[in-house]
């Protein structure tokens, strides 16, 4: 009886943990290196950003709440036109979400980016980002009210 309770308890906790461990195929050392080489220069080591550089920390998860927002993280010039291939870009996006998004992530976790999804989205890089970003965020705020 006791062991059955334990198993049930473990299964329950396993379910609770499941969303957070979806992106298990992220190679931490490789993703960190790519973040350092292609993102950190502007977004800073802990994702705080500076002056005109937007913060990733406790912010970037907001964009996962709409389809446009999810596309935005891939289509911004720093992502879409970077030297990283699409598998590497998907990995560094998932790694950044896991390490920086914090409280901004949707409840219940998120669906990690895949190579195929990123490859398609980056075909349309954004140009007038500031206005577009404001529109995307306004739509996200509307879904949260």
């Amino acid at each position: 009886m006791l062991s059955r309770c334990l198993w049930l308890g473990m299964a329950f906790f396993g379910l609770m943990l499941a969303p957070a461990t979806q992106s298990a195929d992220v190679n931490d050392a490789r993703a960190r290196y790519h973040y350092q080489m292609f993102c950190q220069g502007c977004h800073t080591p802990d994702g705080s950003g500076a002056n005109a550089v937007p913060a990733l920390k406790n912010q970037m998860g907001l964009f996962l709440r709409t389809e446009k927002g999810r596309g935005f993280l891939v289509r911004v010039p720093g992502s879409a036109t970077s030297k990283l291939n699409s598998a590497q870009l998907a990995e560094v996006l998932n790694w950044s979400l896991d390490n920086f998004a914090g409280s901004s992530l949707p409840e219940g976790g998120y669906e990690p980016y895949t190579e195929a999804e990123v490859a398609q989205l980056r075909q349309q890089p954004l140009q007038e980002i500031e206005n577009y970003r404001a529109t995307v965020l306004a739509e996200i705020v509307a879904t949260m009210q």
Partner: protein
Amino acid sequence: MMSFLDRLFEKQARSVAQTSSRRGMLKKLGGALVGATAVPLLPVARADNHGGPQKPVEQGSDTDCDYWRYCAIDGFLCSCCGGSANTCPPGTEMSPVTWIGTCHNPADGRNYVISYNDCCGKSTCGACLCQRDEGDRPPYRPDKTNDINWCLGTASAAYHCSTAVVVGVAFEE
């Protein structure tokens, strides 16, 4: 009673004097001191090395343009301006927005990720101009160019000098 204590202590003292030497005492004390410093280091040092940040083996002077970390630098060396390869001179602010590349360290044969944080807020330093530009890209690759003023995250955009901070080890595929 007193004579009993006298005899007792005299006997004990003579027995110690006959069976030990002053140098023997020094030897044991020295051994204990050295041993005490070595014993805790053994497992602690091993645990400390495991998975921690890997520090480069340093060789050369950070006031020379040839210094390994400066492989892609373009600017005045902060180490000649009152700062160092890692720190800004007094009165300047380090820009958190920076450009990042890798440099090969000949002393240990590894590649390290280097962040060229500029120090800002005072007019140009003017000492130790160093331009090596390895891996420098044109400004249409803005994250990999050293031709722009990187004083972008600071209160003042006035450029003073450049640092070269080791921020990690390059990932080898």
